[in-house]
C-alpha cells in the first residue's frame, strides 16, 4: 500500500514538475508576440553589428532580438515548419528565390520604404528578385581567390591557377557545392549560373581532375591556412575573414578571377504573416540610411549595398580593400549565384562523384 502511494506521489511530482517547467518556459517565450513594440530578426552571425541594433532600439523604442543561423537551409527549414516567431530574416540571394517559391516571405510595399534609392545600382532590381519585391540587400561580397604570393611566387590571375600542378597539395576549395562549381564552370569559360546538363558535366570533370591537387575542402579556416602558407591558393569569400588575412600578411592577396566574378548578397526580407509589420518596415528604413549602412563596413568588415554609405565609412582603406569591396572593373561580368532549380539534381550528382572520388 505504502509503495503504491509513493509511486503515485512520484508520478504526481514528476508531472507537476513538468507542468511547472512548461508554464515558466511558456511565459518567457511568449513575450515578444503580436505587435508589442518588439522585433525578432533571424540573421547571419556577424552581419548586423551591435551598433546598428542598439541605435535602432534607442531611436524607436522597439526591442530587437537577433538570432543567428549557420546556413540558409537551417533558416528556411525553421521558417517552413511554421510558428518560428521571426519578423525579419536575412537570406542570401538564392535563398530569397527558394523562400518566395515556398511562400515564406511577404511582398515588400515599396511605398513604405525611405532611402531605397541609396542602394548601389547592382542591388536594385537584381536577377534573383526582380523589382526587389521580397528583399532589400544589406551586405554583399564576392567569391574569389585568396593566395599567398610568397608561396605561389607570382601573382595569381584566375581560376586556372587553381589547376596549376605546381601548387599540388596546397590548393583549397570551399566546402560548398555551388561555390565549388563557380570555379569549375568559369574555368571552362561557362556561365556560373548555367542550368545546362552538359555544362555541369564539363565542370564536374574539371573538379574531378582538380581533386588530385587539392589539400582539401575548407570553408572555415582557409584564411589562416593561406596566411601561414600551408595553402598557396584557396577559393574564398570576401569579407571579414579574408580581409583580416590580407591585413595581417602583405603576401596574402584577394582577387576576383579574370574568368568572371560572382556576387553574393544577404538581404532583409519580411516574414509572411508577421505581427510586427510596422516594426519590420521601420527596420528596413533604418538600415537603408547611409550612416547606418556604413556601420556594416566599420564594425563588421563587410561591403555595404548602400552606395551613399561609402563616403561615410570611417576607415576608407576598407572601401579600397578588394577583400571587402571588389573593384568595380572586376565586377563587370559578375553575376549573382541563383537557385539552379531543377538543374540542382545535376549539380548534386556531380558533386557526389567529386567528393567520393
Amino acid at each position, binding site marked *: 500500500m505504502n509503495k503504491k502511494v509513493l509511486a503515485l506521489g512520484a508520478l504526481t511530482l*514528476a508531472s507537476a514538475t513538468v507542468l511547472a*517547467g512548461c508554464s515558466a518556459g511558456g511565459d518567457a517565450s511568449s513575450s515578444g508576440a503580436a505587435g508589442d513594440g518588439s522585433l525578432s530578426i533571424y540573421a547571419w552571425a556577424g552581419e548586423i553589428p551591435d551598433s546598428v541594433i542598439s541605435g535602432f532600439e534607442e531611436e524607436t523604442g522597439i526591442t530587437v532580438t537577433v538570432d543567428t*543561423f*549557420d546556413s540558409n537551409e537551417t533558416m528556411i527549414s*525553421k521558417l517552413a515548419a511554421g510558428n518560428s516567431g521571426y519578423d525579419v530574416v536575412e537570406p542570401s540571394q538564392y535563398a530569397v528565390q527558394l523562400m518566395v517559391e515556398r511562400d515564406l516571405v511577404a511582398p515588400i510595399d515599396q511605398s513604405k520604404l525611405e532611402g531605397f534609392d541609396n542602394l548601389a545600382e547592382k542591388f536594385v532590381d537584381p536577377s534573383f528578385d526582380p523589382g526587389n519585391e521580397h528583399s532589400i540587400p544589406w551586405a554583399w561580397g564576392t567569391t574569389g581567390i585568396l593566395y599567398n604570393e610568397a608561396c605561389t611566387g607570382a601573382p595569381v590571375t584566375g581560376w586556372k591557377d587553381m589547376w596549376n600542378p605546381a601548387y599540388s597539395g596546397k590548393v583549397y576549395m570551399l566546402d560548398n557545392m555551388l561555390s565549388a562549381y563557380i570555379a569549375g564552370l568559369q574555368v571552362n569559360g561557362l556561365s556560373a549560373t548555367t542550368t545546362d546538363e552538359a555544362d555541369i558535366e564539363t565542370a564536374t570533370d574539371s573538379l574531378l581532375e582538380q581533386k588530385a591537387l587539392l589539400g582539401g575542402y575548407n570553408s572555415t*579556416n582557409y584564411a589562416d591556412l593561406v596566411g601561414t602558407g600551408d595553402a598557396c591558393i584557396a577559393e574564398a569569400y570576401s569579407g571579414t575573414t579574408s580581409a583580416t588575412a590580407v591585413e*595581417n600578411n602583405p603576401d596574402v592577396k584577394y582577387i576576383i578571377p579574370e574568368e568572371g566574378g560572382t556576387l553574393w548578397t544577404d538581404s532583409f526580407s519580411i516574414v509572411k504573416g508577421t505581427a510586427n509589420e510596422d516594426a519590420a518596415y521601420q527596420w528596413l528604413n533604418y538600415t537603408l540610411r547611409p550612416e547606418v549602412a556604413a556601420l556594416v563596413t566599420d564594425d563588421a568588415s563587410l561591403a555595404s549595398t548602400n552606395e551613399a554609405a561609402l563616403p561615410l565609412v570611417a576607415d576608407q582603406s576598407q572601401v579600397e580593400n578588394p577583400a571587402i569591396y571588389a573593384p568595380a572593373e572586376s565586377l563587370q561580368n559578375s553575376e549573382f549565384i541563383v537557385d539552379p532549380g531543377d538543374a540542382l539534381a545535376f549539380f548534386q550528382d556531380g558533386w557526389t562523384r567529386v567528393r567520393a572520388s
Partner: protein
Amino acid sequence: MDRLTSWIARAVFVFLYLPIAALIVYSFNSSEVSYRFDGFTFRWYAELFADRMLLEALRTSAVVGLIAALLATVIGFLTAFALVRFRVKGRAFFVGAILIPLIVPEIVLGVSLLTVFSTAGIPTGLLTLVLGHVVITLPLATLVLMGAMSSLDPSLSEAATDLGASPWVTFRRVLFPLLRPSILAAFLLSFTTSFSNIVISTFTAGVGTTTLPLRIYSTLRTGLTPELNALGTLLVVATLGVILAVGVSQMRRILAGPTTTP
C-alpha cells in the same frame, strides 16, 4: 612494456590537453590571426564582455542547461526509483524506451520534435528548447541513477523501516545521503550534455533562445575570432572551479566519515 604503456598514456594526456592549453595561450594573443603570436593582451576579454549577442547566448545556454538538468535529474531519479524498487508492469519495456533517445540519431529526434511542436502550434522558444534537452539528458540521468540505486543494499532501507522510519524519513535520512554523489553526477552530466548540444538545439531553439554552441557554430562563415578563445578559457576555468568545488566537498565528506546529519 610498462614503460611503453606509461609513455603512451602520457602522450594521450598531452594530446587531450594541448588544445586546451593552446586555447588559453591564444586568448591572450594580441594578433588577430591564430598562426602568429604578437604579444600579450586582454583585448579579447574586453571584446567578449562587450559582445551582447554572445553573452546573451551564454545566458540562454546556462538557463536552459540548469532547467533541463534539474528536470532530468528529478524525473530520472523518480524513474530510476520506480524501475529499481518496484515491480512495475512492463519494466523491460520502460527501460528499453528510456534508452531509445540515446540510440536514435539526434537529427532524427530534432526533426521529429520540430514536427511535433509545429503541429501542436507551440512556438519554438525556451519551452521547446528545454523539452528537447530533457529528451536527450533524461536517459543519461536515469541510467546513472539506476546504476547507483541497484548497487545500493536494499537491507539499509529495510533496517530503517524496521527501526520505525516512515518511507519519507527513510528517503531523507538514508537513501538521499547515500545517493547524493550519483544525483550530483547525474545533474552535472545532464548539464554538460545540454550545454554542448547543437543538433537538437538547432531545431528546438526559437526567438531569443540561440544557445552558445549555435551562436559559435553560426559564426563559422564570417570567421572565428580570438574572442571565442577568451570565452573558451573562461568556460575551462569555470569547469575547473566546479570540479574542484565538488572534489573538495566529496573529500570533506569522506574525511569526516559517514555522518548523515540532516
